[in-house]
């Protein structure tokens, strides 16, 4: 069985189209990371910087206020950082100077750049720890896009697992002793393993790159005290950046295995890899195209599908369960179900395949 899986993995990764798709996913991911990093901007104390220098400046500002967020600290930040509304009457909340400033004005400023009168307890309901979180949160955003790309690369990779044999090798495989049994299983297992491997690889690359670019600061800080772009419509409950990355890693892996489940079934059911790619990509993307508002109860179900697991933010934004766990943990049983059905159904379809 292990031998057969080895052959299947070799076939999977040996295909040019797969290599090209994975390479494209990696390149896109690198592009997102680099462009996010280079577009970083910060100004503080008369200094302006971009790219790596902006990151350093943001860290310098964050270090001044790092630790537990208190009302005292909020007032101090508002005094020292908050810009006043510009001459065109632009809402002060939308004026960006640096990550810490944007974070404090997003929560505690009125449109003129004055304190909005809210206390920490009113805004967050609990004590939170603040610091330099912009790097990790930006990296997390980039990863979402990368994983969405990767999920399509996974579908391209898995499309030929079964359907690729229907071009003639099926005659040999299905007439052989273990073709309909062990080989069918080995194909499904290799497909799932390959999906997990490429996702884990992508995760490692992204986290590694983020660590190199932004450093390890902020992992124990709350995601709630972040620049405006990471506040509106973002995950609404208090977890640390480290926990956020943990959930993202988990959901990208569960997303990958259930993407694999869907991909394998369609690979077994379609006559050619091309049809399988188109069909599985359509099935994968369709939930995001449905006219379902994020506030609708139906969305809570849709968000558990692989495409949202891979994107993770929409799913995490659905809040927490009663026990305090994110709603997103429901993706685990859903993934297990999709995976089990995908595994069993795909090998069954292949085993029952009639050569043409």
């Amino acid at each position: 069985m292990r031998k057969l899986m080895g052959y299947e993995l070799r076939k999977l990764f040996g295909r040019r189209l797969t290599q090209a798709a994975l390479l494209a996913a990696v390149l896109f991911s690198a592009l997102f990371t680099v462009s996010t990093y280079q577009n970083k901007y910060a100004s503080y104390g008369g200094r302006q910087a971009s790219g790596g220098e902006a990151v350093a400046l943001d860290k310098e500002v964050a270090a001044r206020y790092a630790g537990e967020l208190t009302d005292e600290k909020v007032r101090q930040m508002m005094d020292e950082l908050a810009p006043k509304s510009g001459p065109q009457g632009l809402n002060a909340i939308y004026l960006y100077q640096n990550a810490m400033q944007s974070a404090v004005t997003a929560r505690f400023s009125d449109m003129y750049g004055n304190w909005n009168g809210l206390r920490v307890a009113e805004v967050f309901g609990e004590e939170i720890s603040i610091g330099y979180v912009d790097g990790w949160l930006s990296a997390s955003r980039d990863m979402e896009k990368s994983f969405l790309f990767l999920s399509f690369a996974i579908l391209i990779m898995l499309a030929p697992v079964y359907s690729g044999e229907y071009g003639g090798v099926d005659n040999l495989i299905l007439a052989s002793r273990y073709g309909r049994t062990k080989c069918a299983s080995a194909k499904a297992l290799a497909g799932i393993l390959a999906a997990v491997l490429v996702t884990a690889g992508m995760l490692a690359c992204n986290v590694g790159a983020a660590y190199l670019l932004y450093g390890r600061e902020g992992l124990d800080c709350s995601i709630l005290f972040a620049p405006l772009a990471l506040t509106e419509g973002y995950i609404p409950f208090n977890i640390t950046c480290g926990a956020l990355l943990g959930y993202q890693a988990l959901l990208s892996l569960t997303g990958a295995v259930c993407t694999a489940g869907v991909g394998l079934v369609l690979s077994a059911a379609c006559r050619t890899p091309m049809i399988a790619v188109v069909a599985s990509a359509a099935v994968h993307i369709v939930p995001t195209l449905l006219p379902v508002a994020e506030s609708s109860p139906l969305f809570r179900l849709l968000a558990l599908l692989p495409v949202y697991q891979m994107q993770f933010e929409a799913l995490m934004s659905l809040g927490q369960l009663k026990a305090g766990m994110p709603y997103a943990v429901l993706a685990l049983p859903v993934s297990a179900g999709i995976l089990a059905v995908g595994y069993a159904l795909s090998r069954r379809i292949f085993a029952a395949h009639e050569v043409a």
Partner: protein
Amino acid sequence: MELKTVELTKQYGKKKAVDCMNITLTEGVYGLLGANGAGKTTLMRLLCALQRPTGGRVLLDGQGIGSLGEEYRGLLGYLPQGFGYYPNFRAIDFLLYIAALKGLEGKAAERKARGLLEEVGLSREAKHRIRTFSGGMKQRLGIAQAMLNDPRILILDEPTTGLDPKERVRFRNLISAFSKGRIVILSTHIVSDVESIAERILVMKSGRIVHCGRPGEITSEIRGQVWECAIPAEQADRYVAQMNVSNLRNERDGRTVLRVIAGDKPMPNAELAEPNLEDLYLYYFREQDTGGGQVRERDSLAAASGAAPGHRASRDNGAPAAEGLSGEASGCGRDGEWKGGDVR
């Protein structure tokens, strides 16, 4: 070991590719002859359980091959017609992969794969990628993979396609040596490929076995119907269009000698010739080119004897075209059933 089909039928829409076939195969080499579309590939796929029959069953020693599953496939070796392969695999890796599918692993698989590459003359190309192989080399690789598990039942669909004469001889020798105690079925259009190695010839037409017997014997059916006659060379085209001509030979004196298959003397100077398998093949399949004149004649004979169209009438109905064809002596039952075992 006995492989048997019971009213085996495979239908594609209205087309019956295999039509209610009853055959029993015991150990030996069987040559399956038939024109394009006769149903050879379909029959072989049914025997390999690669397709589900529309009706009937395939039994191995009385048990349905479907229910035998892995056990049956473990006995099987199959070379499909125009089989698929992985272009980027090296020949040896391809064989090792198929060996793994057949349950062979480790040293034993390696030894077997290398031995077979040697036997099909590919040992020097063992490490070459399959995409660099010629058609004949791929075919030999296909033959090797079919034999990896020392199959008790070896089914080869047009195995000699693309092989040069030297490789054909090598193939024939390989199969002859291998076939002892096994059922080997090979389909072909090329009569000479099976003439020398097949112990029995099955002639398939429109999904049915219309004829069977030992190579030397089954031609006796058309004894008295194969003629040779010399005509002026310029008239050859006209005769070829009108008659069932199995061969045409130009002589130095400007004449052409035609080999004609006909119930009656085709022309006054015609002389009877000894029939061969090729003549028999043409006798059955010529009408597909000439518009069916002869098939109508033969089918009307079959109909007169109560057999379904496409079946050969049996000897005891007295129809001349059925001479030497059927009856228990040659192993073909009256209903078209043929018992390979009975031939022995």
